[in-house]
């Protein structure tokens, strides 16, 4: 009897063990194929908006380098039938992994835009949202939808509903006109903010994207840091300093500005933090070296800056109270314009070495330094709000007759791939990427 029971148990246990276990350590890295259909509407007047929204989403996702939008001509199921129920088999045939469908309803001058994101393989809806807004806001809605899709698929924050402020340049190098300009991240809605009668440099967004701090030569003999209010167009000088102030940046809470101040009596530059509420400034570096280009960490507790205190320009981090100073760059060459990533894990910088300029990134302790862009002159990296992409500018070599030397904006993925030129009406330098606007 016992033997019989033992045999039964053995058979059952053996049955349970019939399972194959494997471990995968390698996969495929390629842009995700995605089908973005035109957003459907019963009204003809809204059909165009549907097409435009779809195109902007598709372009945004393609530009990220992480998605591969499928040509709309390959679509089998039409938008009307898709708005009722997707036929996943039709989308599997064209190898779409994700599917975006949408619907627009129009009432007076308001539109209601809904979209759905599907996982084609598992045949389920991943996301569905609806936005109601004014008709002329369709472009912004497209960016917000792009952000939602990007975030759901990648798990990272989006960056499409953002703006870029930069210095628009025109004219010969020895007499160049520099104006503040602003545009959406996809180069739409371009505007000039200043008229070019005075030089502007290093614009930076406030955390709420409503203000810009920059260095201006309004007073030619004494360039200063100013704050420009995008809403009102008003600008004001930051602090009462007898000498030159430059290289400003807002703190993450927008309450302070960190900048460099060159004391005319001493001659070298030190880093100051100015409280915008009390207008009280505090000096946080104090030595005979030149300390410039300070940038806050995302939590606002630390700063990174460059200094020539070791003989060459290197990057240093320290607490905002001036303590815990650490040199983080160790390799050959000179380091400039460090910027802390919004993720908090990396620092981007400009590096000059062997007659070349580089845009590089390193961990906050200086480890794993990598150069991701290189040219005769590249400079001024700025992070996208999700910390995945960088904008910077590249300057061409100037010819002997003084021609050339034009600057252009470029974007690049943190991995060092997907470098793209940003088309601007004039030359461009000193870009700054805004935080997300929603």
């Amino acid at each position, binding site marked *: 009897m016992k033997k*019989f*029971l033992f045999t039964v148990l053995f*058979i*059952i246990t053996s*049955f*349970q063990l019939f*399972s*194959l*276990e*494997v471990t*995968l*350590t*390698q*996969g495929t*890295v*390629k842009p995700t194929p995605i089908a973005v259909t035109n957003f459907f509407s019963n009204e003809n007047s809204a059909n165009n908006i549907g097409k435009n929204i779809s195109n902007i989403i598709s372009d945004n996702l393609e*530009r*990220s*380098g992480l*998605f591969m939008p499928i040509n709309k001509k390959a679509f089998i199921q039409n938008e009307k039938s898709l708005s009722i*129920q997707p036929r996943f088999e039709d989308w*599997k045939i064209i*190898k779409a992994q994700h599917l975006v469908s949408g619907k627009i309803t129009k009432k007076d001058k308001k539109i209601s835009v*809904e979209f759905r994101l599907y996982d084609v*393989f*598992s045949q*389920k809806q991943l996301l*569905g*949202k609806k*936005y*109601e*807004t004014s008709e002329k*806001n369709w472009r912004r*809605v497209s960016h*917000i939808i792009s952000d939602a899709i*990007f975030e*759901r698929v*990648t*798990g990272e924050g989006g960056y499409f509903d953002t703006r870029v402020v930069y210095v628009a340049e025109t004219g010969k190098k020895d007499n160049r006109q520099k104006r503040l300009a602003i545009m959406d991240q996809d*180069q*739409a*809605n371009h*505007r000039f*903010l200043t008229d070019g009668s005075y030089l502007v440099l290093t614009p930076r967004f406030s*955390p*709420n994207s*409503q203000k810009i701090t920059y260095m201006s030569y309004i007073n030619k003999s004494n360039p200063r840091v100013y704050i420009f209010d995008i*809403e*009102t167009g*008003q600008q004001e000088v930051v602090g009462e300093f007898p000498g030159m102030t430059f290289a400003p940046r807002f703190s993450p809470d927008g*309450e302070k500005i960190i900048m460099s101040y060159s004391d005319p009596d001493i001659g070298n530059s030190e880093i100051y933090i100015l409280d915008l509420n009390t207008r009280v400034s505090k000096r946080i570096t104090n030595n005979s070296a030149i300390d410039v280009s300070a940038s806050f960490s995302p939590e606002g507790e630390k700063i990174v800056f460059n200094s020539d205190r070791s003989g060459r320009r290197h990057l240093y981090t320290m607490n905002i109270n001036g303590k815990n100073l650490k040199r983080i760059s160790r390799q050959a060459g000179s380091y400039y314009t460090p910027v802390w990533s919004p993720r908090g894990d990396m620092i981007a910088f400009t590096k000059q070495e062997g007659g070349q300029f*580089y845009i590089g990134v390193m961990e906050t302790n200086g480890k794993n330094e990598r150069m991701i862009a290189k040219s005769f002159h590249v400079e001024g990296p700025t992070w996208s709000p999700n910390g*995945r992409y960088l904008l910077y500018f590249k300057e061409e070599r100037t010819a002997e007759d003084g021609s050339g030397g034009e600057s252009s904006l470029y974007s690049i993925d943190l*991995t*060092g791939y997907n*470098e793209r030129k940003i*088309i601007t*009406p004039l030359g461009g330098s000193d870009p700054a990427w805004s935080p997300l*606007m*929603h």
Partner: protein
Amino acid sequence: MNLSSIKNNKFYIYLNNLESENIGLFSSILIHFLILFLAIGLPDFFGKKSINLPSIIPIEIVNISEVTSLERKDSEKNEKKPPSSSLNKNKFNNSERIEITKKEIKLKPEITKKEIKLKPDIPEEKKIFTPEKKKKKIIEEKMEIIPIKKIKVKLKPKIEKSTPVNEKKTDIVQKTQPKLKPKPKEQLNMASLLKDLRKKKQSIINEEQEVEKKDEDIAETKDELSDENSELSISEIDLLLQQLSGCWVATAGAKIEKGMIVTISVKLKQNGRVYDNSIRIIDTNIAKSSPVYGPITESAIRTLLNPDCVPLKLPEDKYDTWKKLTITFDHKMMRG
């Protein structure tokens, strides 16, 4: 419960008094139970509980303003101050903001409109530049392609071209030689993708080292597998791993940390296809609250639903060894 109470148990007494004519009945009941167990299976008491992905998306309504992302503390302070009379009227953005209402939509819901009072629209601004045409130009620019690195696989099975793998009924090991040319798919690890313009030479050396390392890893995996699943040959497992690697598309752009692991189990049909709704996440070290939890677990599940992996290349005659498949997706080499 003491011994006397067990001895007084009716079932115990029955077993003690069991006579030869009742053995048939008893055996019949046991065999019926056995058949039931074989058909349904035993619940896995000791295995880790499966984790089901939430299918319902929580509803959230967020107001999005045109011009700001944070509460404007400075603007609150400005409100206290009297407005300056010398304000520049050439405003880039009017302070009047447009609000866009965002509403989550559940699967196949009847969408109910929720009217939210919109503030007056921003006056249409004069366009200085329309970058649409130029933008198209950028898109047409050739995208830099991530270099593809082939992985050398040791002990690759040589498969006769005319013989489809699925039709093989005999042991593949006996037939094959280690010379299978893997399909040139973009298999690589993300860590090696990070570009460093100054370290090209060094990175080539590193790549070689990594390939060697991978070879070792694959060999180790094969050794382990050959021990654990003696029924399947190394080349059969290798073929399966190659097929799965091609179907596992790493989560686009996700910030993957070293050591992230997702284990899924799946029940397979004899033709190598997946039973409907049989894929389960049985283990992961990624917190559900992590923003990459959904993308990474979904990417693992998609691997088995990818049309390129249907059906799986497994020998039908050894169905008993692979009818339940457990795959661990180890991200130690897949960093974004």
